[in-house]
């Protein structure tokens, strides 16, 4: 029984850590891929999935690094909030849509201006969905924890 508890204590955080990034990235991919396909930017589903996965994994890993550095090492919650917010704004509203647009252009015959516009649209929709997912995760974890504590 004691060994089972120890095993669960190790496996549960490992599972949660992996599940969090996988779900975050896959939700973005599931939302953006059909939008990009429907808008006619590209017809290569695998390539769109790959590009979206790449940009969002990098985004999430940098965000986690910010949390680790400012939250754990500097222990300063104000700096954490400012830096995290700045990164999210820069990434979601500049870096990700434009880099994805350039990636789509390699296989697309559409004009670059249109691709950038459609990339922004797809990213905006997935950003809103991502916020909803984060709010839900917060409610599901902090909510019960706040009741317990």
């Amino acid at each position, binding site marked *: 029984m004691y060994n089972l508890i120890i095993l669960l*204590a*190790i496996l*549960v*955080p*490992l*599972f*949660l*850590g*992996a599940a*969090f*990034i*996988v779900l975050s*990235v896959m939700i973005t991919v599931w939302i953006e891929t059909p939008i990009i396909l429907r808008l006619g930017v590209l017809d*290569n589903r*695998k*390539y769109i*999935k*790959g*590009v979206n*996965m*790449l940009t969002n*994994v*990098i985004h*999430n*890993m940098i965000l*986690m690094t910010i949390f*680790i550095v400012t939250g754990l090492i500097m222990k300063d919650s104000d700096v954490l909030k400012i830096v995290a917010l700045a990164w999210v704004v820069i990434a979601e509203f500049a870096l990700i849509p434009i880099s994805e647009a350039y*990636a789509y252009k*390699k*296989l697309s015959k559409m004009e670059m201006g249109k691709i950038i516009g459609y990339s922004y649209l797809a990213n905006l929709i997935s950003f809103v969905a991502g916020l909803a997912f984060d709010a839900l995760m917060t409610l599901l974890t902090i909510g019960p924890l706040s009741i317990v504590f």
Partner: protein
Amino acid sequence: MNQFILMDASMGLGVVFIFGGLAIIMFMAAGIFMLVKSIKIIRKELSEQAAVVEDAAESSAQEGEEDV
């Protein structure tokens, strides 16, 4: 009494750090795995597209030669 409270608190904090640390390690590991996978997908699709374009160029060049 205070010593026991402090011990409990520090053990609790230690447990939280270990759990958090494990979760972060797995988060990063899963991230790296997906990063590598996505780069492989992108490179494969780009090389397939390049091969298709090359074939199309070759076949149109051959047709041009035949016409001549």
